[in-house]
């Protein structure tokens, strides 16, 4: 009997712990923290390779106002953004309009430039690549250090504009060149270069405090 009484007491104590614990198991408290967040954005440059002309240009934009909106939509504190940098450069074919599938680009080169500046830099070069296998694909490009640094400088300006509340639209121009083989047969395909960049910032989070 005595043991049973003690056991009952233990049960009641256990019940009290369950029901009155500082952190109720069924209703967790929350805590606030600043968490590093990363969003990936990109600029994409498209080229139409036609006929015997094997040098092409395209221009894409980085709209600071839109980028700021994207970040805010994602809950990122724009003031906290401290890094924007190139994460990868990809390329691929979006349309292939030739009967034969043996088209190949030899010594493909892409340079990037900013129309508001006189400078430019090669982002990748010396690429020999069969065209048809890249249809619908995006594969990594063998990047050049100088070209990435050039784009990173551009992104640093973008970052400054984001934080200063500006609404600039940055232009990114790319020039592509190469030899399309076999020569003497009409070239007809579309391709693209995508420059992915990461935007690193912080966001205030409210999370369970277990």
């Amino acid at each position: 009997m005595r043991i049973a009484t003690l056991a009952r007491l233990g049960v009641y104590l256990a019940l009290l712990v369950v029901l009155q614990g500082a952190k109720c198991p069924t209703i967790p408290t929350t805590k606030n923290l600043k968490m590093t967040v990363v969003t990936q954005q990109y600029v994409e440059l498209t080229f139409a390779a036609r006929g015997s002309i094997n040098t092409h240009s395209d221009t894409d934009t980085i709209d600071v106002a839109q980028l700021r909106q994207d970040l805010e939509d994602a809950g990122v504190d724009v003031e906290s953004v401290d890094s924007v940098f190139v994460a990868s450069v990809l390329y691929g074919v979006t349309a292939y309009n030739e009967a034969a599938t043996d088209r190949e680009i030899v010594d493909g080169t892409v340079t990037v430039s900013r129309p508001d500046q006189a400078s430019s830099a090669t982002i990748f070069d010396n690429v020999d690549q069969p065209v048809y296998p890249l249809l619908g694909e995006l594969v990594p490009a063998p990047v050049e250090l100088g070209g990435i640094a050039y784009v990173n400088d551009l992104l640093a300006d973008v970052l400054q504009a984001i934080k200063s509340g500006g609404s600039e639209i940055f232009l990114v121009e790319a020039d592509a060149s190469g030899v399309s083989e076999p020569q003497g047969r009409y070239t007809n395909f579309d391709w693209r270069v995508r420059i992915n960049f990461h935007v690193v910032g912080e966001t205030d989070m409210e999370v369970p405090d277990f």
Partner: protein
Amino acid sequence: MNRPIVLRLILSGLLLAAVSGPAVAQLNEDLLGLSDENLKGYLDPLQVGLSGTLNSAVFRSGFVPQTGFEFTVGVAAMAVGFSSGDRTYRPVDPEGFTSLEPTDVPTVVGDPAGVIVLGEGGLARGYPGGFDLEGFEIAVPQASLGCVLGTRVLVRYIALNLGDADLGEFKYLGIGGQHSISQWIPSLSVDLAVGAFYQDFKISDDLLHVQSMQLNLTGSRQIGILQPYVGVGYDTLTLDAHAEDEDHPEDAIDVNLDRKSNMHFTLGLMARLSILGIFGEYNAGAGAGFALGFDLGTIGGANHANRDAS
């Protein structure tokens, strides 16, 4: 960008535990920069937490009456702690990126400060921070119904609309049973039962889909109002996530985390006062942790009484 996912995963993983709306959008964006393989590394501790909690407190007794009406309803709260190894993972370089040196980065439960990994050619990759969680905790309702031929049915069920249109509906179902072994071996001095329990929960259909299966052998002995019990089991859990970006279908997230399987050991104590049962148990499974809870109801006990009498 309109990709509805990852914090939803986390949110569901944490079983709707008070994560704010902006956080949902945020983790979603975070994971855009992660390859599928690294997404698995980032989310892997979720499996530890989910398996360690969901597969706890299911079987709390080896005693299953051969016959007699049984119906109980209760709540089980389960918690597991994360180890230091759960807080980081080593990302795999995606194709076209070669990191300058191996670097560990936070998992979803790791440090809130993210890491930037430098790579060859001037490239770099950002990895998001985690939620700085030391443990994982959920509470679920559970009912039992029996008993026929020494067998009882166990059920867990939750279905609710999460309110936020982004989150959709949450459905959770667990179903299984226990069958008495000791009824076939009268010479046993303890009650012994085998059990199986399947659990399935989904958020927004296939946005997040978690399935677990537990096989278990539980032994217990009634001592007055107390009933110590031990269990040994085998748990498996799979976690799949799928989300599409309407604007960029090529960026769809389709993650199937590898099946997590592990042995599971339980040491617990149940006390029953009339229609009230209270239990506490320690579990060593996918993670180590504790469970507490109670149930209300009636348990048919003729065989049990006979055993005690003998």
